[in-house]
């Protein structure tokens, strides 16, 4: 196998500058990732959903709150050419609703993961590197969040939020915030473990003996080495957040004014008997997107693992 490794040419002319190409960790990871078909499939799925999210107004034949079937008596009709996924009880076109739901799913997924992972990285880094009392205190707090019954507390807090805050985009942001706030603890522990491992490395010791400040060591040396783990965890967290939002909306605690796939499933639950298409299609998309992120996450994990030899 041709190694695009070290030098481009080995010529007797040593005056020529020989450039090293493509040996950084990221290059290796990218090459490995490219070869992983499942990971590529995952990326493709995510790309497809992002595409739906961006161009939803162009793809969906009807606008989000429009009920094209209502006045013409075409409520609860099965999939046809006019209504690709059928209509629901009020005459909404399920296909349009699913398309518009893509954006919400991505919003909640990325948003909640951003919140959760920022907290997790912060706590994990500080706790792992500084140790001592800070570590102790932070770990106690982490434990509290880990032990609290997740869904229980989430439902109660969502009820509070929906009573206190306005809905619309605001409502969905609140849901995202809540999910993010209660999901950081597990990953914080994992990141802390990795930080502890990296801390023992010799290059950290070298930095310290060279007189680098703690801040510099943490952000310039420790963090980049934990980054591969953070990337994988983030991807998986996005998948998790999407599932959680769907579950919460299904139970009726989501934002009733926004169109998310979980909301669609909630409305479909009553209609399962007469209108299978109301539930099957949104659920299919949830599964697909979550699968995409899982495949991507696994692929990234395999690609970025520094211990795997090529």
């Amino acid at each position, binding site marked *: 196998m041709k190694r695009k490794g070290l030098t481009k040419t080995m010529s007797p002319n040593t005056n020529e500058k020989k450039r090293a190409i493509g040996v950084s960790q990221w290059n290796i990871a990218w090459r490995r990732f490219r070869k992983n078909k499942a990971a590529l499939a995952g990326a493709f799925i995510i790309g497809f959903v992002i595409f739906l999210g961006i161009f939803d107004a162009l793809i969906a034949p009807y606008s989000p709150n429009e009920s094209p079937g209502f006045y013409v008596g075409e409520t609860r009709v099965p999939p046809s050419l006019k209504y690709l996924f059928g209509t629901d009880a009020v005459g909404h076109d399920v296909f349009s609703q699913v398309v518009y739901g893509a954006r919400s799913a991505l919003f909640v997924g990325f948003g909640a993961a951003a919140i959760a992972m920022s907290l997790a990285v912060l706590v994990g880094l500080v706790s792992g590197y500084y140790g001592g009392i800070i570590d102790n205190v932070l770990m106690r707090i982490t434990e509290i969040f880990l032990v609290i019954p997740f869904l229980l507390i989430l439902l*109660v807090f969502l009820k509070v939020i929906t009573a206190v805050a306005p809905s619309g985009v605001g409502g969905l942001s609140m849901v995202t915030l809540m999910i993010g706030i209660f999901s950081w603890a597990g990953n914080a522990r994992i990141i802390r473990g990795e930080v502890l491992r990296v801390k023992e490395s010799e290059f950290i010791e070298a930095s310290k003996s060279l007189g680098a400040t703690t801040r510099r060591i943490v952000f310039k040396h420790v963090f980049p080495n934990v980054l591969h783990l953070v990337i994988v965890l983030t991807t998986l967290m996005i998948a998790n957040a999407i599932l959680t939002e769907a579950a919460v909306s299904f139970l009726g605690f989501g934002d009733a004014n926004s169109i998310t796939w979980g909301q669609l499933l909630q409305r479909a639950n009553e209609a*399962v008997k007469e209108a*299978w298409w109301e539930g099957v299609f949104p659920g299919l998309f949830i*599964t697909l997107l979550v699968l995409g992120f899982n495949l991507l996450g696994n692929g990234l994990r395999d690609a970025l693992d520094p211990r795997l030899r090529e």
Partner: protein
Amino acid sequence: MESCQNLSMIRYIVRRLLYLVPLFFGILIIVFVASRIAGDPIALMTHQNPHITAEARLRLAEYYGLDKPIYEQFFIFVWQLFQGNLGNSYAIRGGTAVSTLISDYALLTFELQLSALILSLLIAIPVGIISAKRQYSKLDVTVTTTSLLGTCIPVFYMGIIAIIIFSFFLGWFPAGGANSILVERYPFGSHLIDSLWHMILPTAVLTFAILAPVVLLVRSSMLEVLRQDYILAARASGLSERTVVYKHALRNALIPVVTYVGLFFGGMLAGAPITEKVFNWPGVGRLFVEATTKLDFPVIMGVTVFITIMTLIANLVTDITYGYIDPRIRLE
């Protein structure tokens, strides 16, 4: 030496308990205050009554003790809690005692969750082991793909699909509930068979949902263990493959599985509402969702107490068990 271990274990348990008790009350306070901020149950109860007066609302508030300041309400709650009294529901089943509600429904939730957990472990562990032993074979690929899909499909979606296929298209199983409403519908006239018949679909769905991640966990854990040096040493010392795999490798591979199951135990009660909603299963999860929607404070607090205690105990037991079975932890 043995007593030394036991003493430190007891010290550990006591330390954890000292930590868990304030945590328990902390959670109670949070839920208590949050539910009261979330709204006024009196308003919910009476909004459909056009003749209600503000005075009547005040009297209702007095009756339920909701007019008192929040800290006083909380003290009364804790005081009653220590006496074993969880209060009466506001709106569910005409104000029955919360403890009755919970004991009625908890049994059904446990029935479902425990059956699913046991079944899934019985299936997942062997399947995971075989899959690991025959890595990259067709069986392995099928297993991993199915399990991966299983982790991605939301449980309630699985339930909906199962209901559509097995209940409506095929008509084999009832679509929900724990028992048929009409006694005439009992198969063979037996209540027991009727209950089992209703349990099959939700249990099957829940089992699949649980076993998917466990299979993947067992498989990856097993693969990791089989790569270790001591396995090579065991093989080299002439032990049969069977002994190596099932006696030595398995024991070590199951450590993360035990942790997972332990944590799952804690989380399973909290996750019950979803399955219970899909299958209309009368369990504690569904009770909690109903109570939170109706702002039925006594039930909310009662279920919170119940689930939190279970979760904390499950976590404690997992911690202790993990300390016992993984000697590496003990030496730390």
